[in-house]
């Protein structure tokens, strides 16, 4: 718990320093470059920039803890409100992507290891290699071209079709969940048809990583002596693999999945841009290009907090899964 607090403090320190050393004058951004020296000084003091750095830092911590990340100069909104808006879009996409990646990647990796050198192993190898090496923007564009442009199976860019925009009351910000809460099946189908392509794409990339890691964890376990014991008992190969080996790989696998989920939560900028997905990655990138530091730092802190939370979660799962950690 202490280490988590320290990590968070470190994160805040880094974002604070970045915010101060960036060659962007926050005062000029507010008053504009035609302001008089007096106006500039007044704003400088109003923003508290005349105080010692330490005082500023503690003020900053207080602000962050109360959810005050300042105002975005490009949207004119409070950064926290912007993030409240874009983060669920990324969360929804990342969660579905990870679900796809895990539900296919884990069994694929297990089977590839169990039938090492067999056809499934070779296929899994090629699938993962393509997943690693294919640029996502190209795959995304091709996906849109084929499944949206030619076949018309999926919805196009964006989270919803235009007629559904704003039709479902926002409760969680996750449109799939909100439309279910509202009982609006048409909206759910529409949102699903929009998310499925980018989520599959992200899922494919996490599948590539997860299946390779699963395979190598599994091979390591299958060579272990307790597996021979299980075979000596007369257990079927399925029981040997799933009941004995898989329980052991589920421990390191938790970390792999958490990291992969975390990297998707960061916002996959390219995917979000190609699919016009109004998510965190796109928000941070746009703000960065506009020199909108409060927005960038606010987004960075949210991503950092997500990583810390995921680490905490995987540590807790470790304790549940591994009797040796007690």
């Amino acid at each position, binding site marked *: 718990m202490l280490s988590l607090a320290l990590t968070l403090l470190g994160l805040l320190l880094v974002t604070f320093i970045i915010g101060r050393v960036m060659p962007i004058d926050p005062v000029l951004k507010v008053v504009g470059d035609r302001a008089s020296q007096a106006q500039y000084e007044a704003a400088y003091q109003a923003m508290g920039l005349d105080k010692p750095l330490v005082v500023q830092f503690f003020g900053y911590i207080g602000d962050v803890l109360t959810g005050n990340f300042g105002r975005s100069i490009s949207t004119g909104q409070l950064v926290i409100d912007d993030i409240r808006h874009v983060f669920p879009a990324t969360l929804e996409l990342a969660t579905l992507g990870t679900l796809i990646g895990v539900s296919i990647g884990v069994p694929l990796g297990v089977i590839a290891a169990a039938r090492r050198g067999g056809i499934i192993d070779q296929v899994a190898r090629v699938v993962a290699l393509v997943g690693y090496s294919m640029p996502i923007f190209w795959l995304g564009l091709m996906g849109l071209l084929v499944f949206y442009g030619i076949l018309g199976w999926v919805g196009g860019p964006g989270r919803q079709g235009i007629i559904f925009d704003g039709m479902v009351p926002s409760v969680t910000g996750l449109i799939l969940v909100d439309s279910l809460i509202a009982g609006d099946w048409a909206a759910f189908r529409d949102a699903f048809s929009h998310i499925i392509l980018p989520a599959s794409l992200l899922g494919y990339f996490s599948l590539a990583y997860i299946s390779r890691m699963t395979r190598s964890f599994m091979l390591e376990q299958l060579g272990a002596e*307790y597996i021979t*014991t299980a075979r000596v008992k*007369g*257990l079927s190969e399925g029981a040997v693999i799933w009941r004995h080996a898989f329980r052991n790989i589920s421990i390191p696998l938790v970390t792999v999945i958490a990291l992969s989920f975390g990297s998707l939560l960061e916002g996959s900028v390219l995917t979000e841009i190609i699919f016009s997905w109004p998510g965190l990655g796109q928000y941070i990138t746009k703000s960065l290009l506009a020199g909108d530091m409060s927005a960038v730092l606010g987004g960075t802190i949210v991503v950092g907090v997500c990583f810390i939370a995921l680490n905490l979660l995987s540590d807790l799962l470790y304790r549940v899964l591994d009797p040796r950690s007690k």
Partner: protein
Amino acid sequence: MTDPLLSVRNLRVTFATRQGEFQAVRGVGFDLGRERLGVVGESGSGKSMTGRAILGLVRPPGRVTADRMELEGQSILNLSERKMRRIRGSRISMVMQDPKFSLNPVMTIGDQIIEAYRLHAGGAKGQARQKALDMLAAVQIREPERVMAAYPHEMSGGMGQRIMIAMMLAPDPEILIADEPTSALDVSVRTEVLNILDRLVRDRGMGLIFISHDLNLVAQFCDRVLIMYAGRIVETLSARTLHEARHPYTQGLLNSLPRLDAPVDRLPVLPRQDSWRDGGPVGESLETDLPGGL
């Protein structure tokens, strides 16, 4: 003499490698009755591989061939996985070297023993649990209830190996292969574990194949000893007449053991000869072992 429990002739385990075929076991033959048979040899002599071949645990690219491999007159050579699984555990079982690695670290000890028992005996969970408790008591585990709920890492090496023995004997197999069962244990608990193993094996009238590199241990513990070298049996001896060994390898092994009653300044080094690799076995032949001829 009754029919042997296990009869093996000309057993070979071959691995296809890039440099051609490598034979880990080259024509091993023996009969096992309700006795304690020691298999002694150095690392790579093929003794463990022989045990694994009997259990059908040699995995591709390894290949097992034999003129005969019979369990109570019934061939178990290259049986289908499904049929072999019914023999493994229930009729032939194995205890491995180090309980630290041979027990599943994330399953409770109780679950692991119950699994081994129920797989072959079936029955209700409560009955299997009782059997597991009985088995733990039989290997002199003091608090079986507590141990049932514990995980392997909470056990000492000696306890781990007794648990392993309890687990492997729970479905009442006829043959137990013990592959270096005491090599990973402290010397102080070694005898204790061996005595437990010995008692259980004798009480149940089982056949035991005791694989070891420790000639002294095998001589004390077994009825008969096979000496293996480079994938072959070079000599078969009765444990009582070990000192009458005629094969130079066995003699060399015996001479290189330090003796308290006849201390020497420098133990002799065992010089190996290429001719041992392919020379025939000496000592009691298989035929004299089984009157009536085979």
